[in-house]
Each structure stands twice: as C-alpha cells, then as structure tokens.
C-alpha cells in the first residue's frame, strides 16, 4: 500500500488527525465542556481560526481520499463539525437580534415625512399642523342634514405636492464582525453540502428577528376581517402609521436584510434565504392595505385611500429593487394588485360621490337662504381632491358618463361634454360633480315658500361655489373658466330674479300711472289714490324689510353689491315720487300717516337687509315734517 501518493499524504494524514481532534473536542454530544461553551463568542479568536482551519482540513482530506472507510470516517467528522457550526451560527445570529433600534428609524422617518407636509395652505377652518402630529390631522365628516350648518367641514392636512424622495437606506442589522464570522461559517457549511441546514437555521433566526422588528415598528397582525370591523377613524390612524412603518420596513428593514443575505451568502442561496425570511413578513405587511383596498367605499375614505395608493406608488420602485428575483415576484405582484385595487376604489368613490351629491335628499330649507351644508361639504371635498391632483390626473382616465346613457336615471341632468373639450377627465368629473350639486341645489330651492328667498339661496350657494374655486389655485386649474363664467352668470341671474320677484311689486306703488284723475291734465292728482299708494309702499317696504333682514347673504361683497343695486332702484324712485307728491300729502290731514319715511330712512333701512338677524330690527323713522 505504500504508494507515492500515500507517502506524500503522510503529513496530510497527520494534519487530518489534528484537525479531527480539534473537531471532536468541540463535539457537544460527547463533551460537557463543549456543550457549555461557544467557540465564536468566547472571544478566543485563535480558537476560532484553529477550528475553521480544522474544518477546511477535513474537507480537503475528504476530497483527496477514495477509500470508503476513510470517507465514512471523515464524513462523520464533518457531520460533527457541521452540527457544531450550525449551533455557532445560530448563537451568533441570536446574539445579534436585539441590535435593531426602530425608534431611531421611526423618528427619522417621521421627521422626513413631516417635512413633506408642505406648510403653505389655508383651508377655511383648518389649521395645519406641521410637526406631523398625527392626532391632529383628521378629516372631519359631518352629515349636512341641515341641522348644524357650521360644523360641516373638512379639515385636513395639505399634502405635499412633491413626492417623498427618500429611498432605500441600509443599516447594519448585524455587526460587521459578526457578519464576517457568519460568512466563514456559511461558506464552510455550503461547501460541505450542508447548505439546507444553513438556510434553515439562518432563515429561522432571522425570521424571528424580523417578527420582533415588526412588533417594534408597531405592525400589528390584523386580519382582513379585523380591519373591516374597525371604525374608519381608527383605520385612518392606522393608515397613517402603516405608511410610516411600511416605508421603514421596505427601505430599511427589507433592504438591510437583503444586504445581510448578500454579505453572508452568494448566488441562489442568498435569494432563497432572503425570501425565506421576508416572505411571511411582507405578506403580513400588505394584508392591511389589502383589507383597505377591498373595504366598502364611501367618500370620506377617498383621501386616505389615495395616501395609501401614493405610498405604495412611492414604495414600488424600491420594492422592485429589493424583490428582483423570480421567487420574490409574488410580493411585487401583491403590492401592485393592491395599488391598482386602491386606484379602482378611488375611481369608484369619485363616481359614487357624484351620484351621492345628486341624490343627497335633505329637503328642509336652510334658514335665511344661506349656504347649504352640502355646498360647503362638496366644495371642501373638491378642494381636497384638487390637492391630490397629481395622483388623480393619472388615475382618472374615463370621462363622467352623464345623463340617461349610463345611469338609467331619467331625472339626472345631462351635461354637454363637447362644450368642455380639452379638459382632463379629472376636470370633467369635478365639473360634473358641481353640475350635480347645482342641480340638487336648484331642487332644494323649490322647497322655499318665499320665491325671492329661493333665488337668494341659489345666488348664495352658486356664488359660494365660484368663490371657492377662485380662492384655490389648485381647484382653479381644474375648473375651466368657461364653466366658472357659466356659474357666475347663474348667480347673477338669481340676483336679478330676486330683485324682480321682490321689488317690482314694491316699486309699482311708486309709479305715476293711476294717480291722475282722468280728464284733468294739470294738477289732477287724486289725493286718496296717492294716500293709498304711500300706505301700500310703506306696508310693503316694512314687510320686505322685516322679512329680508332675517335673510342672509354671508359674503360681504355680494351683500353690499346686492344692497347697492337694490338702492339704485329703490332710492331714486322713492326720492322722485316723494319729490313730486309730498306736497299733495302735506297739504292734507295727518301727513305723518303717509309720509312715514325719508329717503335717508330707507337708505339706512336697506343696510339691514340680508344681515341674517334672528329678528328684524324695527324700521326707524326719523323724519318729522
């Protein structure tokens, strides 16, 4: 048997024996000491090197021998070494699992996200909280049932128009020293054909670590059923938290986990390990948005759904980078599916909103003809939509489908889309919503018993719509001038209708016709007819003053304009009537019964109009002739 081969291997055999001895010394199945101690975490780097060299030596030996008994023996040694290394691997990993500090990450990310809450903005009644204090930023939805007109409003945080730019940020989940140890172990296990064990151990420990990171990030396990049972307010809060957590999760945790796998393994195993670790977590992470994406739709959900949609849109490029293998495709697919379902939900909500605006059923007239809560609500809602323009312009691809064609509702107003050619579908939807609103308001105006008040109501509300559009640059961009001009025409028309309905009758009493006694040309004025006229005017004016002082035109400028226009008709007519006929009355008995008001009295009285007084002030008469 003394072949040259064997002789030259003589020293090899000796080294092998030494190596075997080292390995057997650390066989925890036979030695108490070996069981109690660890090689890598003892701090004895020399022992570590010795052990690794021993493993290499046995490996080398195996590849050089062919005699079955020797192979068998060497394999046995290798098995002992691998079991040892597996334990060492596990313990190194376990000792490293607590180094993750999500607090600092969350803090960073909250800073980053708060800076993305752009500060410019003022929505009536809303204060923007710029320090990202999430409790404060909530959308407040109250049904405009007409009972509490002041409270129907939407408060919100203005979204940033620029998308978040932060992206992947890797951190050391495991210390660099540990990484190098892990790598040495992994390499040897793989070389010896123990890659399955290696993946199992590595995967299991990192998976638990991932679970505790999730816990620290506040990502709670919630089933779809659980989410459906939560009230929307809670869900909103969770959405906000989820977005923050998901960003950390994808960009920091998953990215770092992937890097760690890359550092320790190469090739296929690296990918297998990574998926083994993150698959469950990723699916868990996405259960929440998944639940949101299939929940029942309602208007108040739109904005948070869009936030979620945008967050996913933001994350997807990073996810594509992280989950770039065929085995991780399913995570990407799931996220993409959720994103498109959220988009679908947003589209659905907008269409349903249009219908809801059209159908909103309250019939109790708003006192004083002021702004209907529905108008406020819808306009604030549209205003919020315009904040999400960037997202929605891409999401809303089809035009609204007005009229009988799609809705089967014969009552539904038609809208001529050809007039608005060149508008984006989003613009069309917003305009269409306003058409629905306008239509509904006109319906509501019919419930006023007082015809002029119904015009004031229409005027007020349409004017409010126009002002609302004008005051928001974002909204202005979406609502074409053409439509705005049409609305302006509408409220002017309502104002004219009001004047006609109220004042034609009053002014009629100041006409010359019918005062002159027939046949007599010069001074044939019938005093009794004149007295009746003055009495009629006084009564009518008093009545109108009494009633219309309680009416309300909340917009100061509009109110002012309306009064001016009213005065322009009334005052000159009264002045000239008074000038012409005062003499006839004064020469008779009890002129004070007929000449109750001076021109100045009326001018002052007009100032009471549309103030929305709960009870009308008495019409003062100062004139003592």
């Amino acid at each position: 048997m003394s072949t040259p081969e064997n002789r030259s291997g003589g020293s090899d055999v000796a080294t092998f024996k030494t190596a075997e001895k080292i390995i057997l010394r650390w066989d925890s199945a036979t030695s108490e000491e070996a069981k109690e101690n660890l090689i890598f975490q003892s701090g004895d780097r020399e022992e570590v090197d010795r052990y690794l060299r021993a493993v290499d030596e046995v490996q080398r030996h195996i590849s050089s021998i062919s005699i079955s008994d020797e192979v068998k023996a060497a394999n046995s040694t290798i098995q002992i070494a691998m079991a040892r290394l597996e334990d060492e691997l596990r313990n190194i990993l376990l000792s490293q699992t607590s180094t993750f500090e999500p607090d600092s990450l969350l803090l960073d990310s909250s800073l980053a996200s708060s800076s993305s809450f752009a500060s410019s903005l003022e929505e009536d009644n809303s204060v923007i909280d710029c320090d990202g204090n999430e409790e404060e930023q909530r959308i407040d939805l109250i049904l405009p049932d007409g009972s509490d007109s002041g409270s129907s409003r939407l408060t919100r945080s203005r979204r940033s128009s620029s998308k978040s730019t932060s992206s992947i940020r890797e951190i050391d989940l495991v210390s660099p020293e540990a990484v190098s140890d892990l790598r040495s172990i992994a390499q040897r296990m793989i070389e010896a054909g123990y890659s399955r064990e290696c993946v199992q151990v590595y995967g299991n420990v990192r998976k638990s670590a991932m679970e505790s990171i999730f816990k620290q990030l506040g990502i709670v396990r919630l089933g779809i059923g659980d989410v459906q049972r939560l009230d929307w307010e809670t869900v909103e809060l969770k959405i906000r938290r989820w977005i923050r957590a998901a960003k950390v999760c994808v960009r920091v945790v998953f990215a770092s986990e992937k890097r760690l796998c890359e550092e320790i393994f190469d090739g296929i195993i690296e990918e297998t390990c990574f998926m083994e670790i993150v698959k469950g977590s990723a699916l868990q992470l996405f259960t929440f948005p998944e639940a949101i994406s299939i929940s029942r739709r309602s208007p108040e959900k739109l904005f948070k759904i869009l936030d979620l949609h945008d967050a996913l849109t933001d994350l997807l490029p990073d996810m594509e980078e992280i989950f770039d293998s065929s085995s991780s495709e399913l995570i990407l697919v799931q996220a993409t599916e959720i994103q498109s379902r959220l988009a679908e939900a947003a589209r659905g909500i907008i269409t349903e909103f249009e219908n809801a605006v059209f159908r909103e059923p309250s019939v109790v007239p708003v006192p004083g003809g002021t702004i209907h809560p529905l108008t406020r609500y819808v306009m604030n809602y549209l205003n919020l939509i315009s904040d999400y323009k960037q997202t929605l312009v891409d999401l809303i691809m089809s035009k609204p489908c007005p009229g009988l064609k799609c809705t089967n509702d014969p009552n539904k107003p038609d809208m001529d889309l050809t007039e608005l050619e060149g508008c984006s579908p989003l613009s069309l939807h917003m305009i269409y919503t306003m058409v629905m609103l306008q239509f509904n308001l006109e319906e509501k105006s019919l419930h006023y018993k007082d015809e002029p008040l119904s015009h004031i109501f229409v005027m007020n509300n349409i004017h409010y719509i126009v002002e609302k559009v004008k005051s928001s640059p974002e909204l202005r961009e979406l609502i074409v001038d053409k439509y705005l001009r049409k609305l302006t025409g509408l409220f002017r028309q309502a104002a004219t209708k009001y004047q006609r309905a109220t004042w034609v009758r009053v002014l009629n009493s100041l006409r010359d016709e019918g005062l002159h006694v027939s046949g007599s040309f010069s001074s044939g004025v019938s005093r009794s007819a004149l007295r009746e006229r003055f009495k009629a005017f006084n009564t009518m004016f008093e009545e109108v003053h009494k009633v219309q002082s309680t009416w309300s035109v909340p917009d100061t400028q509009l109110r002012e304009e309306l009064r001016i226009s009213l005065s322009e008709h009334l005052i000159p007519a009264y002045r000239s009537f008074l000038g012409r006929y005062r003499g006839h009355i004064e020469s008779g008995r009890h002129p004070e019964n007929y000449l109750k008001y001076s021109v100045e009295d009326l001018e002052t009285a007009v100032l009471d109009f549309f103030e929305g007084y709960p009870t009308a002030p008495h019409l003062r008469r100062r004139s003592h002739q």
Partner: protein
Amino acid sequence: MRPAQDNQGSFLGRISIRRNQFVDVNNEQEQEDLELFQKHIADRFTELLSPPSQQPPSDETNTVASVAATDQIMSVTWLRKLMDVFLCCEAEFKAILLMGRDPTQISKPPFDRLVPEMLDRSIKALDICTAVVNGIDSVRHYQRLAEIAVAALEQRPLGDGNVRRAKRALANLVVALSLEDKENVSGGGGGGGGGNKTTERSWSFGRRSGGSSAASKGGATIGQLKSSSWSVGRNWSAAKQIHAMATNLTPPRGNEAAGLPQPMFIMSTVLVFVMWVLTAAVPCQERSGLANHLPVPPKHLNWAQSLIGIHEKIGDEWKKKEKKGSAGLMEEMTRMEKLGHSLIEFADGFHYPAEKDAAESATAQVAEMAEICRRMEEELVPLQQQIREVFHRIVRSRAEILEVLEQAGKLSAPVV
C-alpha cells in the same frame, strides 16, 4: 269607497309579494339554471370523492403504493383539484346571481339578509386563504427537513455521519408534523422573546443519548418552528372562523328553496367546506374542534351527497389526529410523518454496516420520502397560487356584488 281602496291596496301588495317569490316570467329559465348548477356541483364533488380513473382509495395502510395514490383525498394533487372545483362553482354561481338580474331584486328581502351574510362569509374566507397560504409555507419547511434526511440517507456508503445528519432532520420533522397548533402559535408568538433567547444558549440538536427521544429532546427544535409566523390576527382562530362562517348557514325553506336563496346556500356551503378542508390540510392557527364546526347539509339534497362523503372521511381522520396532535391532514404530510418515525427507528438502530433487510427497507422508505418531496416541490407553490387565485376571485365577486347593491341604491346611505 273605502273597501275598494283596501282591496286595491292588498292587490298591489300581493303583486309585490309575488315578485319577491320570483314567480315571474323568467321563472322557468331560472329553475333550469338552478337545476343545472346543482347537478354540476354534485358531479364535481363526486369526482373528487372517487376519481374515475382509479379504484377508490383504500385507507392509509397501503401507503407504500404511493405512486398510485396521487389523487387520494387530501393529497396535494387532490387539494389542487378541489381549488379548481371551487373556482368553477364560483364562476357558475356568480353568473346565476348577477347576470341579467335586476339589481333591485337582490337588495330586497330575504336578500337584504342573505347577501350581507354571504359577503361577511367571503371576508372570513379571505383570512382563511391567507392563513392557509402561510400554512403551506410551513409545509415547505417540512419538505426541506425531509430533503435533508433524504440527501443524507441517499449517501453511499452510508456512514454514521450521514445517519446522524438524517436523524437530526427527521427528529425536527416529526416534532413539527405532530405539533399542536397551540404549541406552534406560542412558539411563533415568542418571536418577541428574541431578547431572552440571546441570553440562553440554544442547541439545535440532541446529545447522542439518542433513541427516539431525540425528538423530544429537541427543545431547540421548537425554536426552529418559530418560523411558523401567522399573518392573521393574534387571537385569530381558524376553527372560530369556520364556525362563524357556518352559523347562519341554513338551507332555504318553503318558497325560497325554489329560488335564488338555494344556489346562495349551496355556494356558501361549498365555500365553507373548501375552507374547512384547507384548514384541516395544512398547519393553521387554532383549530381545536374543527371537525364539529362544519354543518353537514341535509342528506336528502342530491348535490350534497358526495360533499358529505368527503366531509365524513376527513372529519373522522381529523378526530383521530386531533387527539395526538397533527400539523395537518395533507396526505403527503401524513405519510411523511410515518416515514419519518420509521426512518428514525432505522437510524437509531444503525450500525455500520447496516443489516441488509433494514437497509433495503430504509432505501425504499427514503425513495418514497424523496418522491413525496418531489411532489411537494412541484405542487405546493402552484397550490399556493391557486389559493391566491381563490382569494382574488372572492375579492372580485364581492366587489361586483357590492357594485350591484350600490346600483340598487340600497347601500348608498345619504353619503355626504
């Protein structure tokens, strides 16, 4: 005057009642559709109960004839067929429910009760799908342990080292396969205990004190099973979920039995049944009493015969397994467990060189284990994909039904 008016009133009332009872012109067509639907359900489940190409599956004593048993109830292949059956039934049902139907019809009584119940069931089914997909990941984990054992035991010559390696993997495997859900969960829930674990040593393998006790010694093995992470809620329970899905599931009576409530009942029964089978098949969170939670449809219903047959088989098996603890009834897992135990026995008695008989029977068992692994490798991922498809289908149908209800205007509460 008055009586006349009353008459008219009741006359109108009668018309509306009649409409609710579907006594309308389309009735005959609808009846035909319903009968066809029931027939298809019956056919599909009959095929699942006894696949045509094979002799009826005998009980598990004949495990060695593994290759012939691909279609056996609860095998991966069979589960995949079950998913196909579900998808077919669902598609057909949706056509019956929604196609050409006046939206207002399904928002009227009794549908104002039946439809929301059905939608609620579908949400619960979604969570079960997620849990089952996770459960299948655990099965993949068993598969990998089995693969280690196979790889080690296929070595020639077979030495101590190989056998020890195989034994460790097998010990982990049989522990995993026989674990109660609760243990699994508490193991998984301990994820946060990562802090504790850093302080104590963690050993994955036993001392050579050997014997089959290796399995029980695997204190650290449980640590390995922490892998089974559940994506459903913490207190979520598969058994409770199934129970909740089934509670308000009662066969329609009287007039309703002839109309749309009938296919709704059938489809819901199929849904609950399929979810029940899945939760029984693979590891799933909290399943105690699972066997009792499935209401059996009345035996006289033709379409239900085979379904009941399958239910009984699986139910019996579950009751047997529940006592001693089992990760799942998937046929491959059951065989894997059996092979695992028997190979551990072989490994325990192993002395080089192995006895000829023992070696031969071990070789056969290793081959069978390898075959199971191969099948799992081929079919588990597709099964997961099918379950995901079921998930999507349920989501889509739910959305469509909600949309119809929306049209009917019933759900659009004064939105703003």
